């Protein structure tokens, strides 16, 4: 019995920790945590530190430099103008398509695979393909011209649209996959229940499926947006990197690798992160509005 009482407190402490879920198993987290801290948090903090140590202009010099120069500052707007509509279109187009493809039908796997193929294209092939296909004498314009639909070739490359299309081609499959996955996660009996309650397809969709999909939509939008926001190679290759598609990552790249101004480059990276998180936060905010709005709606 004495032995028991002596060991009791130690067991108890271990137990009290274990009760909170703290025990030796947590050590398994350490490598991953270290990796993220060393390879992500530290560089990010380092970059942030660098951004406050410009060669000239004081602590905020790099930021002043960036925001003081309309040519640099405008890259935020340019990027958002590309990324937001592209992400929006990708998500918006995925919803009805995925909605159609919920159930089981023959050829679903094939169709899914086909829709997902663009993930494999890579920026270069997409860029080359867009330049070839949508270019002034590409098949697309050729067809339009032969069909007499247009007088001269449409300009769809080396401008906003080129980049936009490349964002759609690379972003859509991703958005589609996620949304299909979220949609499949919604219990199909809910819709059937709604049907037996007299709801046609539209009320079923917008009163039941859509509100339930809202969180997934928000997540998908954020991830697609992140992809689009960091657009870099295609903005150079199919865009107009000096003008309409001078996106913020071009500015960052230019600062780091052409002007060798690491401080400015870091500052731009920080600005990128901030803008991006702001958009993500806004989307999540809107989602909570949307959710309550829809549930509170007409009822």
């Amino acid at each position, binding site marked *: 019995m004495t032995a028991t009482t002596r060991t009791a407190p130690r067991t108890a402490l271990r137990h009290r920790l274990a009760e909170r879920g703290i025990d030796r198993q947590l050590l398994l987290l350490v490598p991953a945590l270290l990796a993220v801290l060393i390879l992500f948090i530290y560089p990010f903090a380092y970059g942030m530190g660098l951004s406050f140590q410009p060669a000239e202009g004081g602590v905020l010099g790099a930021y002043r430099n960036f925001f003081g120069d309309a040519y640099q500052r405008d890259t935020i707007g340019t990027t958002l103008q590309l990324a937001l509509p592209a992400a929006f279109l990708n998500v918006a187009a995925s919803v009805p398509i995925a909605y159609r493809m919920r159930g089981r039908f023959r050829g679903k796997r094939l169709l899914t695979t086909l829709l997902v193929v663009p993930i494999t294209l890579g920026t270069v092939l997409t860029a080359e393909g867009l330049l070839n296909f949508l270019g002034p004498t590409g098949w697309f314009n050729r067809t339009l011209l032969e069909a007499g639909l247009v007088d001269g070739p449409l300009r769809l490359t080396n401008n906003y649209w080129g980049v936009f299309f490349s964002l759609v081609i690379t972003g859509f499959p991703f958005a589609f996959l996620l949304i299909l996955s979220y949609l499949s996660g919604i219990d199909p009996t*809910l819709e059937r229940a709604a049907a*037996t*309650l007299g*709801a046609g397809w539209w009320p079923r969709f917008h*009163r039941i499926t859509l509100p*339930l999909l809202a969180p997934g939509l928000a997540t998908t939008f954020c991830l697609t947006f992140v992809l689009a926001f960091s657009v870099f190679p295609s903005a150079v290759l199919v865009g107009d990197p000096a003008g309409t598609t001078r996106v913020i990552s071009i500015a960052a790249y230019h600062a780091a690798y052409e002007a060798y101004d690491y401080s400015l480059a870091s500052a731009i990276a920080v600005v990128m992160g901030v803008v991006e998180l702001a958009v993500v936060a806004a989307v999540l905010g809107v989602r909570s509005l949307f959710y309550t709005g829809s549930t509170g709606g007409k*009822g």
Partner: protein
Amino acid sequence: MSWLRIDGVTRRFGGKAALERLDLDIEQGEFIALLGPSGCGKSTALNCLAGLLPLSEGSIWQDDTRLDTLPPERRGFGMVFQSYALFPHLSVRKNIAFGLQMRRLPRAEVRRRTDEAIKLVRLEEHATKLPGQLSGGQQQRVAIARAVVLEPSLVLMDEPLSNLDAKLRLEMRTEIRRLHQSLGLTTVYVTHDQEEALSMADRLVVLRDGRVQQIGTPEELHTRPANRHVADFMGYRNLLPLKVTAVTPDVVTVEGSGLALRGTGVGTLAAGDEVVAAVRPEDLVVGEGGVPVTVEVVEYQGRELAVEARTEQGLRLHLRAVERPAPGDRITVVADPSRVLVFPA
């Protein structure tokens, strides 16, 4: 002519029939139970009725309207799903009001009828909660209220109690029965629990492998199952493979594996036929001059004891005893011939 007529309804999945030529007439206000083991096609039948599954063959008529070509939302039936299928993002009140809103009823009426329905299932205190915050029984009641608030001409229920625990199941059973009686709803109820079906339904439909085995009142099924499968399902736990030794108009004598029983034949039988004798445990009692068996397992069941015993040839029997025998005891058992059903094997 009956109020709802199901006429040769067949549903195949990839060539295999999940439901074959179901014919059923339902009267207004009836409570019908579809009963059968897992995979026998109960849900398929219900979904065909609801319009959630298109038919492969056959038709469904309500009075003189053909229903089976209408989409579910236009049939005007209510349905209670096994998994409840409550809308997780809508409060209890909104879940129940949903169907009324779909009908574009005036706001005041929606409110009134929803309130009534909430009261009916005694969920007044929970009206503003989300389904996730309710217990299983409460969720079940929301599902029922949601289906009946529309005053549907027919309510379909797919194993609505199977996710509840034993005590709650008993309570909800009475609840559903009460609702049925007070609202006079025509109901088709799917279950694999014979006790549930017997206690709730006016008429039972027993399915097996997509085919109807028997249709009848609880008494009919309980006392006169049409074949050995129905008997098996109706609690005839002793299904003994035996041989007919003698047939008289009233009594069939069967023997085998150290047993000799007298029973009532179902269908035409002749001496020498291989048969299955079906007896409920409660009809096999310890008594003088019966079959000698050895007690193997004894289970206490409140007032009674359930006993498992074996004949010398190793045939296992389930019976009831009032006094506790010990495992290993040798006893003799008897059965009333009218309670022993003999089916062709």
